[in-house]
């Protein structure tokens, strides 16, 4: 009792600043409360007004993104995740989120709890997660710390997802020196729910009881949201208690119990406890329902005795939910959680005061208007200064065409196939259960996007995460638009059409005007591309402060998670070459552009160049044509040209089908540009020879250039009649490269 903060024990602006608040924000809190806050209240404001929870430096720009569409069932930001209509009475909930800072300090738990947190966002809405994806960035792979981080992150994602029982079906990994100190770990979850069986994150009805369910509350993760809202420094290891510890077994029980609880109809609302724990869930549910809550913190089951009120309020212990129940139906909910042997304890009730009143052993320890804490309510909103980054001017002086064409392109091809950003991800992906749930149709038939069948339906989902941050660094507007276009292209090549996106916006410190310039331009590019593709933004996450003293800000990395629909499973398209003699046709404009390609980096040592050629209108027309060709039955395989260009694209399709291929480059265009350039808006198809005329006719009708590059062979790889070896040799190199690099002696 003696240690409790009463409402009259005020704190100073110094304390506020230590908790990461600005002096002006401390003044604002005093105006809201009409008095000086105590330490509990200040702690609550510090996490709710942290960048992580309040989006204070990003929300103005996020609101410029397209957030409406006929398939959207909830608006962006309304619920824990976006919800889109799939027809047939089904809906899809999906979202991506970052767990970068925890993973930098403790890769295993950081990544594991990132996976756990994003799944909770999905099942708190009533949807059963059916697939997980992730997007990872690390420093150079020849650095032993990178390998330590990669091992830990992969094991963390695997151990959590494998035990929780949701397949990890897709993802991307890039290695760039800018992520050396500050890796990026973004996790995405996709779930399915029947219409009318969703649950909202809302508190309503004065007198309705409020329960905490799931794990007990411990001291882990306190001030995790604040931690995520600062740069990574040498002292960050001191923040270790700010990293949460995950328990996928508890989460699995919580999943089943939550879905059963929703099915009873006895719930008013439910919200998971992620960042800022009890504080955030009570504040957001109350603010959404325009009500208040009276909460007795001494009733919260804790892992250790004598936890202080602010510790209980801020704890980010995992696998917990806040549940509001219709008064009189408590026993039904209690029975569900009893069945699953989970805590289910009433800690308070809904009020009509609009205030969050927290008690501890009889005395009031905090009293705050709920609305004042939340995004869209009283949380601060800033527009930060922008300045065009100096490096952009420098970059424009480089002309890749000043560099000689190599006499033997095979040498470059061999190096590209084992480059860390191109080589097979098998070493990573076999550590994830990619098949549990028996819906992953890509296991035995790979596509550019992962294809997930919907049981008892003709339909399937196609999903992908994409962002080439090198392009975004080169040109934030174009690069972000390319990320959207590539995601849509991957879904197109799988026989589907993009429905909507979720985004994870990983940037440096927003108070750095050059970083904020990158952010603003990336948002513009993303918005324009999403509008053109008809794929609205359903929500996501902003992660600023991804930078360190040694490496500076990371490349601007706006990761796009896109979900698309394949109306009829029979129209699903795969990427593997099928039959020798099939023709190889590039759809999209011929280009020798080499800007920002991996080839340019490793062969001509040009680290930074302009973004690759990209034309949004051409891209849309090209994708429309590919979808039409697939539906007309004229396509045997489809794979988009991305990192490594045409040669790597053909190689990947060939290895997947255990076939070879022969290519002929184009007279008058640079051979290296043709083979390895990364100009956008291009897809490589294999088709039966007898379909060539029909394909050409459709392409002409839709105004899209096509070019015949060669054919599928039995086993041999040739370029301009030069022997490039056998596909089995390429496959061994490509598949073994990452494992070999992981086993290399420490650097």
């Amino acid at each position, binding site marked *: 009792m003696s240690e409790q903060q009463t409402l009259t024990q005020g704190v100073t602006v110094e304390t506020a600043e230590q908790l990461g608040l600005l002096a002006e924000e401390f003044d604002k809190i005093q105006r809201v409360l009409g008095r000086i806050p105590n330490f509990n209240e200040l702690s609550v404001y510090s996490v709710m007004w942290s960048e992580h929870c309040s989006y204070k430096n990003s929300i103005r720009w996020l609101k410029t993104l397209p957030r409406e569409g006929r398939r959207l069932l909830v608006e962006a930001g309304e619920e824990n995740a976006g919800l889109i209509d799939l027809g047939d009475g089904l809906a899809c909930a999906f979202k991506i989120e970052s767990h970068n800072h925890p993973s930098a300090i403790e890769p295993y738990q950081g990544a594991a709890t990132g996976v756990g947190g994003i799944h909770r966002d999905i099942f708190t809405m009533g949807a059963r997660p059916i697939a997980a994806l992730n997007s990872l960035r690390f420093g150079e792979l020849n650095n032993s710390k990178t390998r330590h981080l990669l091992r830990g992150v992969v094991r963390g994602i*695997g*151990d959590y997802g*494998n*035990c*929780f*029982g949701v397949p990890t079906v897709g993802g991307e990994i890039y290695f760039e020196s800018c992520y050396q100190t500050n890796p990026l770990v973004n996790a995405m979850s996709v779930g399915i729910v029947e219409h009318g069986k969703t649950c909202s994150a809302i508190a309503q009805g004065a007198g309705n009881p409020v329960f905490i369910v799931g794990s007990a509350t411990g001291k882990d993760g306190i001030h995790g949201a604040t931690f995520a809202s600062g740069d990574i420094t040498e002292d960050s290891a001191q923040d270790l208690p700010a990293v949460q510890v995950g*328990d*996928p*077994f*508890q989460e*699995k*029980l919580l999943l089943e119990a939550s879905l059963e609880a929703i099915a009873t109809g006895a719930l008013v609302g439910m919200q998971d406890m992620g960042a800022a724990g009890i504080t955030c869930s009570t504040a957001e549910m109350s603010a959404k329902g325009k009500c208040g809550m009276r909460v007795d913190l001494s009733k919260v089951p804790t892992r250790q005795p004598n936890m202080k009120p602010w510790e209980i309020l801020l704890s980010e212990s995992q696998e917990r939910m806040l549940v509001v129940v219709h008064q009189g139906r408590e026993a039904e909910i209690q029975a569900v959680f009893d069945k*699953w*042997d989970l805590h289910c304890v009433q800690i308070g009730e809904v009020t009509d005061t609009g205030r969050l009143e927290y008690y501890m052993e009889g005395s009031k320890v905090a009293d705050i208007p709920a609305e004042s804490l939340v995004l869209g309510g009283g949380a601060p909103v800033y527009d930060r200064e922008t300045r065009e980054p100096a490096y952009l001017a420098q970059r424009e002086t480089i002309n890749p065409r000043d560099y000689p064409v190599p006499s033997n392109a095979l040498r470059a091809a061999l190096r590209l196939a084992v480059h860390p950003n191109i080589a097979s991800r098998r070493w990573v992906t*076999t*550590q*994830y*259960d*990619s*098949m*549990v*749930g*028996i819906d*992953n*149709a890509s*296991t*035995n*038939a790979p596509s550019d996007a992962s294809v997930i*069948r919907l*049981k008892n339906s003709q339909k399937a989902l196609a999903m992908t995460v994409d962002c080439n941050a090198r392009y975004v660094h080169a040109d934030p507007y174009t690069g972000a638009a390319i990320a959207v276009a590539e995601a849509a292209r991957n879904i197109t090549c799988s026989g589907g059409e993009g429905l909507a996106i979720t985004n994870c916006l990983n940037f440096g410190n927003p108070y750095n005007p050059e970083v904020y310039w990158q952010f603003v331009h990336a948002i513009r590019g993303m918005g324009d591309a999403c509008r053109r593709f008809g794929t609205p933004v359903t929500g996501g996450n902003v992660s600023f402060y991804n930078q360190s003293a040694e490496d500076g800000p990371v490349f601007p990395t706006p990761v796009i998670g896109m979900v698309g629909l394949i109306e009829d*499973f029979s129209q699903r398209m795969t990427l593997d070459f099928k039959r020798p003699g099939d023709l190889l046709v590039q759809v999209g404009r011929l280009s020798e552009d080499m800007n920002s390609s991996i080839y340019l980096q490793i062969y001509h040592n040009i680290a930074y160049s302009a973004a690759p050629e990209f034309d949004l209108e051409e891209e849309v027309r090209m994708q429309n044509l590919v979808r039409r060709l697939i539906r007309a039955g004229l396509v045997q395989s489809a794979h988009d040209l991305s990192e490594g260009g045409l040669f790597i694209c053909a190689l990947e399709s060939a290895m997947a089908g255990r076939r070879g291929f022969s290519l002929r480059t184009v007279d008058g265009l640079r051979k290296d540009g043709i083979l390895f350039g990364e100009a956008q808006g291009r897809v490589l198809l294999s088709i039966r020879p007898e379909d060539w005329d029909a394909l050409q006719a459709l392409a002409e009708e839709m105004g899209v250039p096509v070019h015949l590059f060669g054919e599928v062979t039995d086993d041999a790889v040739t370029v301009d009649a030069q022997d490039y070896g056998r596909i089995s040799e390429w496959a061994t190199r490509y598949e073994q490269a990452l494992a070999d690099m992981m086993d290399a002696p420490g650097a």
Partner: protein
Amino acid sequence: MKFGVVLFPGSNCERDMFHVLSQVMGCEVREIWHKETSLDDFQERDCIVLPGGFSYGDYLRTGAIARFSPIMEAVIRFAGNGGRVFGVCNGFQILCEAHLLPGALLRNNNQQYVCRNIHLRADGPDSLLSRGLPAGQVLKIPIAHGEGRYFVPPAVLEELEANKQVLFRYCNAEGQVVPEANPNGSLNNIAGVRNLAGNVMGMMPHPERAAEPVLGNTDGRLIFESLLGALEGARAGAGALAG
């Protein structure tokens, strides 16, 4: 004739098993909650399935806590009376912990969890899971485990082999049982075993993950067809294969 699929806390393949048995194979299936204590509604010719997953989080040791679940006493009685019991992955681990099957599943020899397609060959033509399979047939079935290295003491291994209790061995695509085809370091490439009586069976690979054309692999279906054929008494499995 029906199936019971036991749901332990932390099981995560029970829905997959239920779907394949009921929707794909057309069988009657009941979900059995781990707190149940009786299997009186099952006959000797029925089959209790322990599915894959991470029962009780696999904390302590895989399957070590699940074996003390209330339902396991009933499963042990059921097996003792000659009833059929089939464990897949974590279910196999639980059956070993419960001493219904010999041996133990240790951490994979490369210390990593592994999920991928592997190849299997039935060791003999006369088990409930291989009846009706053409001789030497190679099956492509996925594995997904961190603790799948089958181990028994040398004397028991000798006994196991002499009694033809090995159900399946890991092999290459050509059907050769070679060290390179062993994904986890299991003794003698063992992927699954049965008890001496033949009514209790366990395997690490997941046949339920390879039982539908939409997933591009139906080899697992052959194992269920074999089991069903055996359950029907006759060699009906062979007929189902043709169909």
